[in-house]
């Protein structure tokens, strides 16, 4: 346990002493603010149109603007995550191997599990900190909507994005443990993430039972429930198994470095 904490502390220090954390947080904030603004304008315009229509027809408006904004915004966040996580994870092991510090870690009385989980939790923490400023817009959405939007939607959205991000970070860590080259790690992680993203579309068209399986395997399919404010157990199980699987694979891969020619 002391080893896990020491690794976690070191990784967080590394993010925040170097410009890494600030660049990530800053860029993520700028992009998410820009898109939030875009979504806000578009949805408000749409809601005015709906109101006009309903006034002409004489029927009550059937348009939940705040929920619409939230869903669009979390959808957008997931796309940003797809681009940000490979960059966040590409150096996680590659850099240690290149610098020779992996040799220090692996000859210290700490387990591979401590190393892997410490690093994973640190990357997840940076990811959570990166998301934190966006909560300001969302809290504003909840408080200023009329009638007040349920908090549950907000919490489900963030739970979803953390699980989605955690899954991609676990995948990225594993890829980084396989290669010394950071660029290769980033490209493979991005491609693999994209693949399990679009696997959903393949499944949707086929309609067979194989298609259903493919749909279940897609990371984004499960995320959609969360953005609607629904926390589904099967989705929770999906994300947790995904993370556990890749953390386990990373532990095995780090352990196997001992057997490969260094």
């Amino acid at each position, binding site marked *: 346990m002391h080893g896990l904490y*020491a690794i976690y502390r070191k990784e967080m220090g590394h993010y925040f002493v170097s410009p890494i954390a600030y660049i990530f947080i800053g860029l993520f904030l700028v992009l998410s603010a820009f898109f939030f603004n875009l979504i806000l304008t578009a949805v408000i315009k749409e809601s005015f149109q709906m109101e006009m229509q309903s006034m002409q027809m004489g029927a009550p408006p059937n348009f939940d603007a705040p929920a619409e904004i939230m869903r669009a915004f979390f959808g957008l966040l997931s796309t940003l995550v797809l681009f940000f996580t490979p960059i966040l994870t590409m150096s996680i092991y590659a850099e240690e191997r290149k610098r*020779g510090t992996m*040799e220090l870690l692996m000859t*210290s*009385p700490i387990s591979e599990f401590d190393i892997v989980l410490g690093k994973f939790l640190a990357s997840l923490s940076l990811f959570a900190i990166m998301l934190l400023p966006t909560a300001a817009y969302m809290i504003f959405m909840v408080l200023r909507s009329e009638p007040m939007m349920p908090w549950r939607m907000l919490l489900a959205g963030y739970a979803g994005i953390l699980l989605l991000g955690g899954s991609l970070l676990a995948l990225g860590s594993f890829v980084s443990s396989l290669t010394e080259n950071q660029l290769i790690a980033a490209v493979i992680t991005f491609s693999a993430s994209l693949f399990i993203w679009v696997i959903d579309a393949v499944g949707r068209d086929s309609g067979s039972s194989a298609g259903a399986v493919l749909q279940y395997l897609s990371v984004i399919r499960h995320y959609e429930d969360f953005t609607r404010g629904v926390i589904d157990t099967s989705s929770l199980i999906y994300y947790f198994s995904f993370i556990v699987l890749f953390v386990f694979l990373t532990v095995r891969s780090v352990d196997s470095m001992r057997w490969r020619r*260094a």
Partner: protein
Amino acid sequence: MIEVQDLTKSYGDVKAVDDISFTVNKGEILGFLGPNGAGKTTTMRILTGYMPATSGTARVAGFDVFRDSMEVRRRIGYLPETPPVYPDMTVEAYLDFVARIKNVPAERRSARIDDALAKTNLEDRRSELIKRLSRGYKQRVGIAQALVHDPDVIILDEPTVGLDPKQIIEVRNLIKGLAGNHTIILSTHILPEVSMTCDRVVIINKGKVAAVDTPQNLTSQLKGGQKIKIEVEAPERRLREVLAQVPGAGRVEIDPERAGERLMVVVEASQGNDIRSEIAAKIVENGWRLFELRGVSLSLEDIFLELTTDDATHAQSSS
């Protein structure tokens, strides 16, 4: 303290370490001497638990390096070939991190860090970022890192590489100072380093142990013979004949580039025979002009080359 038995490490068909055995006693400094690629680093990596051996056993303080890896790792401080430092950390933060992963209890941590900084003369650099340090200082940080948890065994892979002569002397003194309380293995391909710091030497070549002894014994006993250097004006063929008649004289080498003028000759004398006066007498007898005649004892360097040069190439050069 350290027992290595029939240790072998293969990478595919290549044997990096081939059936080596040696022991290191408590408090001793053992030098690991060999040309680059002889298997020094591989042996050290096996001892530190970084990689498993293909066969054979290695024990540190009674614990098997593979089966009781954690127990072994607790007791070892290790400086790999390149100092394993994080450039973005300060020296102090780095040592604090290493102390934590080496399981140094919180209450002893700052005292241990101060001690390691003092021993490596880094006190005035403690708040500096490692990336701002010179090569020599980085190397010292690497050594400090190996000492921070006060391990029983310290393994240093080429600890003086990249240091200037003054720093090399400092590091050697530091290593000598550590002996007694710690058991030390250091590797090097620099010969004087071994005679200056080590109690015993393992000469390793192509993965095999070529010799194990004290530096003194290696110089005096293993190749106790002498070489005699002669500078003389004489006809080459005749000189060879005359020298061959001197009892106790061995191989005669004449620098071919200087043939015709004064000859530079090296005569190997067999063990225990001082043949200098006899050679001098023979030269005078023939009426040749003698300019220099002196005995040279074989240095560790010669022994090293002798032991690590292929038999094939050796036979070629002597024929």
